[in-house]
């Protein structure tokens, strides 16, 4: 059986029951493929055992790049390439460079972080996502379990496990 093809899908009605179910299913030794929710459910990442996102680090590094770029650019342009005395200040007057430096820091930090987010989350506008259940963007919380990564459980085992964990529906979903 191939990975990422045959799934057992549990449908839950509210966020608390899906959090409880994730705890129970994981305690039973089952690996969860992913849980799809219509809105961010706080605490779900913890019970699923996800590590904290490192996107803040990316944002910081992109911001630092922006700061360095802006200071270098302004100092080089007005300090060395074409020195000008403006308002009797130094050629490269740091205080006057702060606003542009700040703006470029924010700009690069925001754009870099969002680009990283889209890349690491593998979001592509031209591709249809795999939909385990279309209602997962409406009002249902959907837990997908890959059969191939849980070989020691049968379909019936997983179905009854999900039902006992509080799923309102359990379906099978196969992708080509």
């Amino acid at each position, binding site marked *: 059986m191939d990975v990422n093809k045959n799934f057992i899908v549990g449908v839950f009605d509210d966020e608390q029951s899906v959090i409880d179910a994730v705890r129970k299913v994981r305690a039973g030794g089952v690996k969860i493929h*992913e849980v799809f929710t219509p809105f961010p459910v706080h605490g779900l990442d913890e019970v699923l055992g*996800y590590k904290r996102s490192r996107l803040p680090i990316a944002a910081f590094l992109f911001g630092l790049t922006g700061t360095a770029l802006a200071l270098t*650019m302004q100092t080089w342009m*007005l300090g060395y390439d074409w020195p000008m005395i*403006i308002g009797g200040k130094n050629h490269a007057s740091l205080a006057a460079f702060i*606003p542009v430096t700040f*703006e470029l820091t924010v700009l690069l930090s*925001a754009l870099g972080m969002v680009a990283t*987010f889209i890349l690491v989350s593998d979001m592509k*506008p031209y591709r249809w996502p795999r939909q385990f259940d279309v209602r997962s963007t409406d009002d249902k919380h959907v837990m997908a379990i890959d059969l191939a990564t849980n070989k020691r459980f049968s379909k019936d085992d997983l179905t009854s496990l999900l039902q006992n964990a509080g799923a309102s529906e359990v379906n099978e979903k196969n992708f080509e």
Partner: protein
Amino acid sequence: MQVTSSVRDPLVTGGKTVKDVSHDISRQIEAKPTMLWWMAMAISLVLLAFGFYCVCMLVWHGIGVWGLNKTVGWAWDITNFVWWVGIGHAGTLISAILLLFRQKWRMSINRAAEAMTIFAVICAATFPAFHMGRLWLGFYWALPLPNTFGSLWVNFNSPLLWDVFAISTYFTVSLVFWYIGLIPDFATIRDRAVVQGNKIRATVYNALSFGWQGGAKTWMRYESVALILAGLSTPLVLSVHTIVSMDFATSVIPGWHTTIFPPYFVAGAIFSGFAMVLTLLLVTRVVFKLQDYITIYHIELMNIIIIVTGSIVGIAYITELFISWYSGVEYEGYAFFNRIQGPYAWAYWSMMTCNVISPQLFWVKKIRTSIVATFVLSIIVNIGMWFERFVIIVTSLHRDYVPSSWTQFHPTIYDIGQYIFTFGLFFTCFFLFAKFFPVINMAEVKSIIRSDSERLHNEGTPREVERTH
């Protein structure tokens, strides 16, 4: 149970379930446009067309068609620029600062407010852009691009250049922030289209949603991104109007040369922005039947922000007057004396009435919870804030140091036309947004509705049930 506190009103009324949220917000995207929408759109397009004619005349003949003269070199253009940028500030305040303060009531108004921000900034940017005259050379004047004069670089010591960076960064970051918020909602509309069998809509909204799936891991990253964007936008929004105010404050014109400008401008911006949010949302909630999402409670909270910022603006006006006397600088003293009783006294007193006196009416609970009163006052505030910028700019310039240069400013049809152009642009964008984009952040609103509200709705209103516990 929708809100866990027993002392606060529920943020979403009418016992809405999570499914109702998807339905109520997606409904107007899926339905054919109403007659009312077509009429509103037609009016906006007429304004846009007339404005576009005026803009074309301006580009063709040059900025001489405006009413500017040697003494008053800045008038309606920069007044309107500052006015529009200021309006934009409320959107970022709602989406970023209220997110950092965990104010959940922001959730049903942030989407429309951010859209307003983006369109307002576009409108604002048209004024300095067209004021450059030869628009097509503007890139070389405004951006540090290599050119054939040396390269002669732009002047990084100038607040006008800071403004270029501030406004463009503000626009880009706001757009990204707004779009990130829209992604999960586009996916909701896509999946509804899949169920309804509408292939075209499904494909379009899938592309718009970047193929969003809503996995727990993506949501975790998404929340991290939203929080950092909020953290970045907060100092950004404060910096934007600070820098706008520095366009004036770093000069040596009496009436502009004031250190109080940055906080005073930021408060004024939020003040006018909330007024504009109210004007737009009071109409939107009725047209799209969203009274359960944008409740009187939301309106009241926004009115309270208007009292606070309006009072800060009032204090700033009085401080300016005091300092102009206390500083002992006769030019400064004259500038303010001239504002109060000179040829533009009517503008000064309109500003004072609209901005200082009228928002104080919101201390009365009956007025701040009245839709009609709020609507009227929100427009009055925006008129007042327009006069504020006009007063600061024109009255400070029209009495030059040399009395022989003293003059008045009279707008021409092209000054007015350019302003109308931005109104046409703003409302065209806003109506398109309201028709094709979800006007309320569905994913966020869903997160504040507990799923058992359905049960509670059958038993009574959430509030009543809450009290019995």
